[in-house]
């Protein structure tokens, strides 16, 4: 054999690129989601820095008002639709099949289609910068969005329709995977909590994205073909867009946070050396949040005067109950546990501390008279950033530190990671806490400038300093990844001594993940396997991967 000469190195590299582009492996698609959404995160982060730099002092220093109008909207679009959503989808793509003991997602080729449709949509959205921008905010309220002359708005609408299609296909894929590909013995109530949150998130996506897609199509027709959906002079109704948008928009915020809850619920038991407290209550709370998420959309529209206030206020308060159950479960899991504060655990604890502030801000907003006072002020900006930065972003970083060894075989540097955590923790509060005061003081969101005698200068400057601290933390994370990837792959299969099946295979896992699976008798199958003899001492060298040799 071996009469054929090896191909030259260059063509091998081309083949590797071709391999990634055409892959249907859930792990590679997951990594592509993670990497590409991180790139969109950097774009959104740069836009945020422009916003904070402009607002650091009164007067217009860097950008015109017209540019600013595009920048704040595209910052939000980037962060919500092109960073948090695909990042959580990507983590789910990588982890969910491993956690349920499947070889791949249910529809691997649809999975690849979802990813490439997402990339196309993302590029369409970014290209709106080249066509006059999209100064319509992320909510795209009519008649602003239907009458803004910029071509960029059309690109934004088309891009969002495409990312929506990608999400629907992804949701179907997750649901079928979770319903049909679970390992033998893994009943629905033995699924890891991250899988449960992905399940509920997928249901939310499946039922909410089509609604906003219909609305986006209407905006497109109003803009380009003389449609009258949201145009009063033609018989339409601009408030109608707000109903359509928020019917999607409120489930959307749970789409952004439920998988984050799942990540935290994976990490806290591992680093507390205890099972998750109240697993079933947690499942019920997750499902309740998903169901209640469809009953509260009009709390974004209190000031329109077009909605029944008591109903939406009551259900908004009601959502605090299952969320409170989750907080109780996390704290009770840690209570009396053997806590170790590795970086993933630090981020999970930071999440619990800061998301609480964001959640309480939200409860304030459910009070109708208070909402009338702070509608469209920096209070709301502060609220959404406490839940999306201190919530989703902290959980995403926790997940990246936690699962990085599984994805790459390498542990990220712990010292750098802890320093980064504290910088980010302080930076987040320095940035967003002063915005509470600005909001109560009447500073309206989405303005490019404010008067020097308004008394907002110091708080705004503080907030801008915090934004650069966050940027520094992001740079530290990128350096950490870069430096770690140059080191040896020596993390081992199960560096955290964890409970779930993804740690039962090699790091990174082989194609098709498992050659054989342990019997699943609880929601912690790997823990059961390691402690099956006496319930205490871990059994050394357990591996269920292909590299261990043939099955007897």
């Amino acid at each position, binding site marked *: 054999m071996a009469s054929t000469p090896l191909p030259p190195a260059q063509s091998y590299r081309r083949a590797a690129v071709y391999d990634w582009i055409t892959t249907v492996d859930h792990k590679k698609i997951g990594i592509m989601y993670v990497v590409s959404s991180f790139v969109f995160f950097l774009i959104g982060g740069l836009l945020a820095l422009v916003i904070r730099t402009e607002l650091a002092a009164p007067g217009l220093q860097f950008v015109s008002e017209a540019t600013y109008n595009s920048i704040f909207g595209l910052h939000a679009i980037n962060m919500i639709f092109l960073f948090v959503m695909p990042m959580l989808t990507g983590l789910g793509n990588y982890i969910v099949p491993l956690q349920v*003991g*499947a*070889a*791949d997602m*249910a*529809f691997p080729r*649809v999975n690849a289609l979802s990813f490439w449709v997402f990339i196309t949509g993302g590029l369409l959205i970014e290209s709106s910068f080249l066509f006059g921008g999209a100064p319509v905010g992320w909510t795209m309220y009519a008649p602003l969005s239907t009458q803004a002359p910029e071509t960029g708005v059309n690109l934004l609408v088309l891009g969002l329709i495409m990312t929506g299609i990608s999400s*629907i296909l992804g*949701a*179907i*894929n997750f*649901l*079928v995977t979770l*319903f*049909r*590909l*679970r*390992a*033998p013995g893994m009943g629905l109530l033995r699924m890891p909590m991250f899988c449960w949150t992905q399940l509920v998130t997928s249901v939310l996506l*499946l*039922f*909410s*994205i*089509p*609604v906003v*897609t*219909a*609305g986006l*199509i*209407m905006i497109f*027709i*109003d803009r380009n*073909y*003389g*449609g*009258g*959906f949201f*145009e009063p002079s*033609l*018989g*339409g*109704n601009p408030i*109608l867009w707000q*109903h*359509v948008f928020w019917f999607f928009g409120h489930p959307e915020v749970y789409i952004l946070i439920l998988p984050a809850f799942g990540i935290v619920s994976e990490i806290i038991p591992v680093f507390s050396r205890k099972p998750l407290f109240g697993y079933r209550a947690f499942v019920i709370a997750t499902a309740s949040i998903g169901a209640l998420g469809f009953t509260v959309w009009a709390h974004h529209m209190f000031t329109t005067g077009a909605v029944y206030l008591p109903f939406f206020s009551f259900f908004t308060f009601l959502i605090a109950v299952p969320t409170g159950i989750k907080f109780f479960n996390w704290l009770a899991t840690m209570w009396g546990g053997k806590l170790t504060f590795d970086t993933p655990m630090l981020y999970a604890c930071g999440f619990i501390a800061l998301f609480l502030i964001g959640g309480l801000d939200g409860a304030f907003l459910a009070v109708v008279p208070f909402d009338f006072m702070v509608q469209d002020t920096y209070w709301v900006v502060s609220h959404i950033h406490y839940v999306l930065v201190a919530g989703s972003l902290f959980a995403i970083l926790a997940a990246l530190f936690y699962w990085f060894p599984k994805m790459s075989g390498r542990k990220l540097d712990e010292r750098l990671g802890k320093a980064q955590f504290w910088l980010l923790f302080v930076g987040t509060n320095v940035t967003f806490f002063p915005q509470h005061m600005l909001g109560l003081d009447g500073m309206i969101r989405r303005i490019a400038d404010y008067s020097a005698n308004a008394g907002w200068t110091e708080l705004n400057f503080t907030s801008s300093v915090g934004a650069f601290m966050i940027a520094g933390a992001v740079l530290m994370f990128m350096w950490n990844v870069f430096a770690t990837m140059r080191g040896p792959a020596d993390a081992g299969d199960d560096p955290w001594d964890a409970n779930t099946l993804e740690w039962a295979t090699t790091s990174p896992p082989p194609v*098709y993940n*498992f*050659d*054989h*699976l*342990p*019997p699943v008798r609880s929601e912690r199958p790997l823990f059961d*396997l390691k402690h099956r003899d006496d319930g205490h001492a871990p059994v050394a060298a*357990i591996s*269920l991967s292909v590299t*261990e*040799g*043939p*099955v*007897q």
Partner: protein
Amino acid sequence: MTAPVDSLTTDHGSENDSGHGSKGMDIALMGMLLFIASEIMFFAALFGVYFNVRATAAVWPPEGTEFISWQGSGLFGLGLAVLITIILVSSSFTMQWATDKIRKGDRTGMNRGLAVTLGLGIVFMCLMLFEYLLLVTHDDFGINSGVYGSLFYVMTGFHGAHVLGGIIGIAVVLARGMRGQFSAEHHVAVEAVHYYWHFVDVVWVFLFLTIYVLR
């Protein structure tokens, strides 16, 4: 090297086909049903917008749109809409007939049923486009004729796009059926397309009642 005790060997081939365990729904069929669930929400949004606009309008339907009603003064009035409704509803029956045939293993019967369904679907599409042509040229009623025109064309148009998708699906399973790829046990594609076609049909019944009858 000893394998861990009482571990289960995985079978990727059968797992990719039908999931873990042999009981329960085929994964492709489940995917199609979930897809239909999301499509229901899409049309629910369109209907929601329609009834919101209808409820808040001073006059509904707007004056000068009698040509698509019982009191039709247009070229065909309601006649054309009733005709295409009969055609599409019958095609649901022929689709069910084709599916029942292959469930019993009758390939020829299935092919005949699929061919008739395909024909009815194409006739529906042609007549719908003919109605559009009449409305635009004869009644000067376009997508920019106020919110009523926008709603009419978006709702019927997106339904038409779904009919087109169904026609493509039927054509694919018919082509596969003519090559003998289906049997009583293996015909999940036929099942999936047949669910989708029923869904498209039910949406049309609601559209017909909403736009032409209830107004």
